[in-house]
């Protein structure tokens, strides 16, 4: 044995000599504190920090060195703690997000970077934020005055799916300024809304932003309970088969395994599902496997490692069946049948006018078919549920879910319990985007907790998340347009095939929206749409921001540009001519009576593009040159790069707010006044990063004249908060916002009438302002108001169940939706004609949001929406081959990074809707919908290549350029 080596490698002695007297140690300094810890075999630095030191601010988004969420700074350098062996940190100094703020006697003083992320609205769901801040911190240490380019290079692989990249960049610039100069933080560049409200229309920071920048924000996987077990799910791994045999005995016998359950052990119903209960909780022997992610068995064990090892000991035998891999195949008569009801989930029909007559009246008729791929939400926080049995025989489920009450029902049904026995305790969500509406691990965790009597955590890794949860529908969309020579649309026919995958999820609703929006935001006399939402053996498809309209907008907006070219017409003029306006009737027969800001969006985007082009020309041609008479869509050369071409492209869109289609769209909210004068608004509606909590806080502050800091928001708890309904269809600002507004108003009335009586004043003269109530010369703080209410025996809270205006089911005409949001976008792209590579340079995005409630939050939604649309156009493609998932790692499923972020120029258009809170309507989805076709239209304008199949393929572009 070499002596030098012994000295060098102090960790190894014990094993090495076979004398086990000393366990290797790690000594490291974390956030200024020295730790001496025994080394644990196989441990990563992330595990050491999160599990042993309980520093859970460091997040795990992928565990595969792709997302950057786990970034910590080791000896001054940012590294990925998920793939960094803990023992390598021996002797080193580690800084995590928890170590950034100064904690003194006066409380916490945020680091300027943390403060800047908060103030600049860079924090949305917050899951990526610790990684963003740690990476930027290391950058600023090295480079106190980074350029935009340097910031982008530094954050290249630190992903944010909420994608507020421009805000992240401006936050870093602001913090750098403050760190260099000691001056106060430069404020963000956000236009306030013109409206005359006190709180509404002005920018406010999220109530949870500070916790999210300090690492204190707790997400589900950060929870630990006494005696908690770890669960894993055995997945089928084959796309279509009958399960013939399942042997879990060896797994049961494995030390550390506490319970293994199969379909035979189900105490309640066997299926779950948001609308149709067609999704087996576990597939039983003799039953059908319909996709690779189907669950066969679940295990709870003392450790994650034991649970994982148990999976390997389970064996299944299948009778494999032919695979249905796309919706067109699924509809063929000879296709294998996947469900008792057949492969057709739903045939959706829209009929308006006389289609034949419409086409007969047309001078030109164009027809083309488009394809869009499956895409994944790739929220940065993988799914996690923790089920905890309580002493009084109930089950708590801690989960970040978009529909807590639906979780409660589905979990209770699976346990065979009354719904009230289950308590969903909603957690912060690291993004959802529609992907956290269905059941993921909630039921499995609860079943295991019930069987073992112990808390059970079920955390998906990224691989499992990608394989299991419902995706955006892949579609095939055929559009046939008829128009007169002067550009008036006479008829539109669309035919859609949607790949709903193995189970219904929200497929029928999503494809319904795709269909009713498939003719675009245009007035068309004669229209017909048919959609076939089909079951296949692919992962299920369900809700995803845009809800089907993302796909149909790509098709119809591409067609509009093709039509403009055929008619030799300006694409903007063509859209303007046909745009929905007040008095128009949609293809489902709904007359629009108010709040149609589409024309203004179109005009403003066009004007902005014109302005930008002028500005560019002025800077490129110092002498002014002749003012360009070309169309704004003409291709332009790139100075110094003859092989590159730039051009702008345009598109428009609309998107319903709310469930519509005759659904009872309602939400409950409560507003409480507490003895200390604090207010609290409660609803089960979900916060997934989109900013609902800020909106609710602002509404209550507005109505009760209180400062925001006095209003607490409690969401997503089925015991404590009334049902807010699903967080989907961009409905929460409108529906739950109204519920909160009306609850606050009714509390205000109760207070006013109590004080009016008590002080003998007319209730109208009672003023709510500055956190006090002014009555007859007195100014009562809210704590005193509470006391007054209490002593009068009045309730100090109000409950309101708001019902949105009634809507009609598809096919009955009339109002299918109570509001629509509208948008127009223009994208500028640069295409490399030698390689086919495409880069998006600028996006101008105008959205008619009714009323901007929180301009700062809206900015984040616009940035994130545009980036998601950009990803949809350029980077995202969830590949399934014969039912097997190819893109089963984040490394293979690319979401846009800061490097691909164009300059985003937001324009807010406000055509208030009368019933919406202060006129507001939904914004979450519309911001994303026009981006893809604006980009592909720009590509066409640059190089004459029509992209009719997403994502854009640089090789195909090149082929087409060369052809």
């Amino acid at each position: 044995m070499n002596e030098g080596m012994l000295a060098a490698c102090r960790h190894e002695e014990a094993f090495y000599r076979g004398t086990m007297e000393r366990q290797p140690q790690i000594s490291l300094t974390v956030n200024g504190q020295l730790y001496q810890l025994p080394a644990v075999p196989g441990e990563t630095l992330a595990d050491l920090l999160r599990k042993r030191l309980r520093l859970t601010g460091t997040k795990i988004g992928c565990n595969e060195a792709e997302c950057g969420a786990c970034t910590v700074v080791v000896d001054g350098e940012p590294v990925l703690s998920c793939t960094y062996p803990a023992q390598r940190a021996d002797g080193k100094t580690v800084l995590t997000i928890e170590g950034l703020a100064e904690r003194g006697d006066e409380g916490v003083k945020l680091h300027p970077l943390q403060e800047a992320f908060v103030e600049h609205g860079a924090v949305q769901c917050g899951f990526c934020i610790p990684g963003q801040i740690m990476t930027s911190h290391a950058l600023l240490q090295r480079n106190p005055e980074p350029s935009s380019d340097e910031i982008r290079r530094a954050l290249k692989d630190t992903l944010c799916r909420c994608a507020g990249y421009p805000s992240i960049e401006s936050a870093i610039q602001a913090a750098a300024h403050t760190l260099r100069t000691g001056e106060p933080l430069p404020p963000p560049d956000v236009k306030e809304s013109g409206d005359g409200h006190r709180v509404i229309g002005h920018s406010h920071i999220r109530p949870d932003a500070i916790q999210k920048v300090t690492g204190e924000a707790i997400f589900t996987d950060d929870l630990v309970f006494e005696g908690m077990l770890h669960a894993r799910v055995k997945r089928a791994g084959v796309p279509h088969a009958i399960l013939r045999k399942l042997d879990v005995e060896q797994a049961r016998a494995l030390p550390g395994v506490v319970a293994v359950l199969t379909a035979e052990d189900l105490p309640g119903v066997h299926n779950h599902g948001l609308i149709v209960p067609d999704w087996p909780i576990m597939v039983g022997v003799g039953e059908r496997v319909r996709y690779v992610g189907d669950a066969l068995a679940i295990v709870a064990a003392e450790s994650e490692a034991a649970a994982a090892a148990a999976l390997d000991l389970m064996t299944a035998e299948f009778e494999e069946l032919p695979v249905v891999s796309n919706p067109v195949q699924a509809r063929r008569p000879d296709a294998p049948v996947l469900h008792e009801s057949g492969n057709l989930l739903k045939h959706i029909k829209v009929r308006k006018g006389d289609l034949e007559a419409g086409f007969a009246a047309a001078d030109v008729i164009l027809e083309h078919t488009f394809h869009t791929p499956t895409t994944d939400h790739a929220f940065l926080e993988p799914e996690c549920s923790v089920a905890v049995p309580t002493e009084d025989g109930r089950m708590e489920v801690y989960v970040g879910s978009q529909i807590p009450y639906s979780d409660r029902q589905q979990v209770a049904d699976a346990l065979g319990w009354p719904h009230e026995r289950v308590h969903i305790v909603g957690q912060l969500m690291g993004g959802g985007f529609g992907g956290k509406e269905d059941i993921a691990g909630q039921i499995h965790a609860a079943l295991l907790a019930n069987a073992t009597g112990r808390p059970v955590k079920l955390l998906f890794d990224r691989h499992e998340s990608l394989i299991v949860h419902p995706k955006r529908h892949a579609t095939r969309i055929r559009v046939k347009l008829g128009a007169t020579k002067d550009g008036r649309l006479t008829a539109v026919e669309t035919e859609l095939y949607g790949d709903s995958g193995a189970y219904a999820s929200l497929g029928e609703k999503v494809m319904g929206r795709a269909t009713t929006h498939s003719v675009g935001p245009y007035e068309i006399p004669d229209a017909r749409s048919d959609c076939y939402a089909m079951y296949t053996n692919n992962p299920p498809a369900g809700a995803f921001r845009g809800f089907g309209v993302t796909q149909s907008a790509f098709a119809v907006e591409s067609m509009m540009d093709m039509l403009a070219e055929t008619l030799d017409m300006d694409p903007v003029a063509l859209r303007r001519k046909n745009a929905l306006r007040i008095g128009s009737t949609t293809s489902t027969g709904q007359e629009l009576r108010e709040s149609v800001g589409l024309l203004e969006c179109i005009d403003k985007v066009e004007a902005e593009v014109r302005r930008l082009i002028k500005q560019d020309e002025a800077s490129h041609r110092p002498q002014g040159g002749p003012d360009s008479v070309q169309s704004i869509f003409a291709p332009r050369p790139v100075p110094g790069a003859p092989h590159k071409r730039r051009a702008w492209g345009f598109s428009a869109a609309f998107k319903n707010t709310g469930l519509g289609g005759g659904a009872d769209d309602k939400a409950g909210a409560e507003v409480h006044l507490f003895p200390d004068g604090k207010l609290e608004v409660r609803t089960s509606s979900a916060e997934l990063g989109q900013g609902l909590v800020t909106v609710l806080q602002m509404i209550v502050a507005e109505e009760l004249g209180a400062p925001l800091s006095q209003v607490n928001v409690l969401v997503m708890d089925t015991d404590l908060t009334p049902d807010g309904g699903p967080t989907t269809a961009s409905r929460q600002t409108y529906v739950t916002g109204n519920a909160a507004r009306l609850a606050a108003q009714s509390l205000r009335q109760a207070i006013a009438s109590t004080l009016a009586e008590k002080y003998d004043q007319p209730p109208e003269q009672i003023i709510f302002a500055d956190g006090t109530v002014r009555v007859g010369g007195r100014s009562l703080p809210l704590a005193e108001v509470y006391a007054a209410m209490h002593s009068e025996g009045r309730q100090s809270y109000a409950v309101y169940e708001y019902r949105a205006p009634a809507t009609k089911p598809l096919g009955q005409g009339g109002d299918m939706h109570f509001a629509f949001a509208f948008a127009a976008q223009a994208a500028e792209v640069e295409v490399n004609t030698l390689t086919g590579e495409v880069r998006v340079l600028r996006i101008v995005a105008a959205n008619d949001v009714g009323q901007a409630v929180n301009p700062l939050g809206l900015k984040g939604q616009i940035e994130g929406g545009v980036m998601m649309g950009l990803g949809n156009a350029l980077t995202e493609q969830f590949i399934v081959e014969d039912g097997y998932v190819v893109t089963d790692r984040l490394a293979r499923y690319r979401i846009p990074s800061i490097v691909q972020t164009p300059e985003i120029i937001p324009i807010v258009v406000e055509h208030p809707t009368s019933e919406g809170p202060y006129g507001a309507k939904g914004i979450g989805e519309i911001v994303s919908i026009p981006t893809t076709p604006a980009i592909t239209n720009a590509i066409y304008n640059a190089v004459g290549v029509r992209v009719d199949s997403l994502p854009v393929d640089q090789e195909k572009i090149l082929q087409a350029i060369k052809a």
Partner: protein
Amino acid sequence: MNLWKQYLCPKNVSDALHALTSAPPPVSIIAGGTDLMLDLQQGHRAPVHTLVDVTDVSEMKALEIRGDELYVGAAVPINRVVASPLVQEHAQALVEAGSLIGGPQVRNVATLGGNVAHALPAADGMIALVALDARAVVANPDGERRVPLLDLFLGPGKSALQPDELLVGFCLPLRAPHQASAFERIMRTQGVALPILNLALWLARDDDRIADVRIAVGPFGPTPRRALAAEDVLRGQPLTGAVLAQALDALLGEARFRTSAYRATADYRRHLAGVLLQDVLQTAWQRAE
């Protein structure tokens, strides 16, 4: 199952070699771990008993001029490699290639040793090293030897290094006047984002002629190779369109481009090879002025 049981951190080459040969097997070297950790975590590689962390081996951390060579330790993190004025002076292609590897967090730990030992046919750092005519310093219990880089590869992902062998560092010729190198790569941001093709080139310029040239393209075939036929065409010639076209023909004649699903067809790669060759050649040519 733990991915490893024992973690050793030798400080010098002989201790590292000793660990490789005498620690309980299976033993694996770990440098940055950016390839290895994923292989272990994702089950592409069976758990090991011992990981030998070589990032603290002093000889492998060195980066300096040694005589008429630039020595780059195999375990120097790539961020340090690309930030080094010596590397910037003598090996521009390596700077350009290294800067494109992963993001900063990956580059802070990833190493050239790992990039070469992982033996993928298009690893960026490796391709640059090939064009720069690097020799690898390989140590095993019998001693140290210098090996041309291209001798280290057996097939895609298969290195010729023996389990008891260690890549200690790389020796690169110093750049003389009128010599230069450059690197470029083309990625696919659409869909499965993976590099499609890269190309590194070194040349010596004699006025308006290419006195000498070395070209490495990845992936060129199952194992890395130089584009020798193209080099022959270019050597001694002025840089004209006709010469370039001939060189490209030669390069395409010797390349074995493949179609990889969701990434690129062989045809696209052939086309891009032309784009890259022209670009990189031009850059190096100007630099060598």
